[in-house]
């Protein structure tokens, strides 16, 4: 399992490649004919309305939902095998505040994939977990019950848990839900730093926030519109419906539109 992953360091490699993907539940097709390639080193923000298929796409990438049709590969391998390179940060809306667990033990769950049944966590696991917690600045709070944390702190613990899996790709589902604005800019800074080594894909319904922090933006609403750039063309907006609603609702961010030429540091 612990194969040498350093050989994946070549820039420009395909981290995720999705071809002709159809996915959904029972009678409802949520994602239609998705083609999407993520290259190593990318930091992609996918925006779209709620119910547009953001979470469904993640479920497919995590092997939780088998695709109806199409091919999905992670570093050239099928999902079952490829998902070991993926660190997942879930949307943290529902949560049992009384669950008896501390920060350390949550982060340590990131090591489960490395220590199968009947194996105890090793010193190496503890080292990785400690490092992950330090990275998100939660090591000092490692004995704190998870229920006593603020939304932003909890989110950072989930990021640490994902980092403890030693991922090559980080998937974040609405990472700034339940996080106050100040904390969210701290988290964005952290993600930017992590992006030096890890490919990041995050989904959000909040385009304004996402577009000023990521390298490139895509729209997802049943279909996926992504051209590897940071601009959202009117065609993408129109086609992906819900997107312009967010745009207007939050005031039009300059960076998102092509050729405005008066980009100021207001973000």
């Amino acid at each position, binding site marked *: 399992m612990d194969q040498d992953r350093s050989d994946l360091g070549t820039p420009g490699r395909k981290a995720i490649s999705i071809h002709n993907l159809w996915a959904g539940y029972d009678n409802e097709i949520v994602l239609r004919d998705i083609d999407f390639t993520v290259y190593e080193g990318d930091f992609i923000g996918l925006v779209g309305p709620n119910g547009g298929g953001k979470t469904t796409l993640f479920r497919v990438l995590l092997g939780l939902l088998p695709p109806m049709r199409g091919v999905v590969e992670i570093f050239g391998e099928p999902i079952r095998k490829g998902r070991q390179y993926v660190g997942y940060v879930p949307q943290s809306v529902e949560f049992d505040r009384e669950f008896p667990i501390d920060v350390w033990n949550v982060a340590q769950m990131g090591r*489960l994939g490395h220590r199968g049944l009947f194996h105890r966590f090793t010193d190496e696991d503890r080292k990785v977990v400690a490092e992950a917690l330090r990275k998100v600045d939660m090591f000092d709070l490692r004995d704190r019950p998870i229920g006593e944390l603020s939304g932003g702190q909890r989110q950072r613990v989930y990021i640490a848990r994902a980092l403890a899996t030693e991922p090559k790709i980080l998937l974040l589902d609405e990472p700034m839900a339940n996080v106050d604005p100040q904390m969210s800019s701290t988290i964005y800074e952290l993600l930017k730093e992590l992006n030096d080594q890890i490919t990041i894909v995050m989904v959000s319904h909040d385009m304004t926030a996402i577009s000023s922090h990521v390298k490139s933006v895509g729209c997802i609403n049943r279909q996926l519109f992504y051209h590897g750039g940071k601009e959202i063309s009117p065609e993408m907006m129109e086609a992906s419906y819900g997107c312009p609603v967010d745009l207007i609702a939050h005031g039009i961010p300059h960076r998102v539109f092509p050729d405005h030429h008066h980009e100021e540091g207001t973000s």
Partner: protein
Amino acid sequence: MIEEIVQALQLGFMRNALMAGVLVSIACGIIGTFIVIKRIVFISGGVAHAAYGGIGLGYFLGFNPVLGAIVFSVVAALGMGLVQRRTRERVDTVIGVLWAIGMATGIILVDLTEGYKADLMSYLFGSILTVPTRDLLIMLALDVVIGILVALFYKELLAISFDETFASVENVPVDTIYLILMCMIALTVVMMMRVVGLIMVIAMLTVPAAISSQFVTDLKRMMVWASVLGMTFTTTGLWLSYFLNLTSGATIILVSGVGYLLALGVKRTFFQGSAESEIGELAAEAG
């Protein structure tokens, strides 16, 4: 009083009863903790009541009803577990239906059985005062089995309780672990049948764990405290029922219930240093 206690301890059935209370409390504390944190109290209730079908079958076919209860509760536990994982039906509805079917099957089978059904009530309401020494050994064995299984699968059980999605992404065999937990619940239920009866099994599984979850923030400590609380409740309830000549199972449950309410009160009064209680205090002062 002390003389009376010493006198009572001379009685074999009283010693066995106390011992049984302690032994089931261990399993209860461990398994109850998972039931409470994983929020499957309702499933455990279903398993307990479905077990009655097995008792009826035992009576009808003339074998030991406890064996029937074991088979029925394990099958019910696995069935409900699978239903919960696999179907998109409303899970609580399905469990409610299985719950009722198990119970009804038991009643009908007992109806169809000729003759005198002496200790039928003991399965429903418990009969801790008639636990034979052989049953104590079975309880001890079950405690050991449960202890070993939980120790072996501890990190996986914790993972599926906290975040099943993440656990499956990390290749934890979520379904298998969940079904192992369901089996352990079934065995615990049968074991507790002797002490408080099937109808009140839910209370014994949840109350000690629920109380300890109010005060500790670590899963292992929660199990230990739940076990200790269970022992306290069964022992207290047993003595009360002995001196007041009441049904022991029901007395144990009432003692647990009172303990639960007391714990809630204690928690509210002493353990809430949060803004919420501060506001409450300020409001009280203002009023």
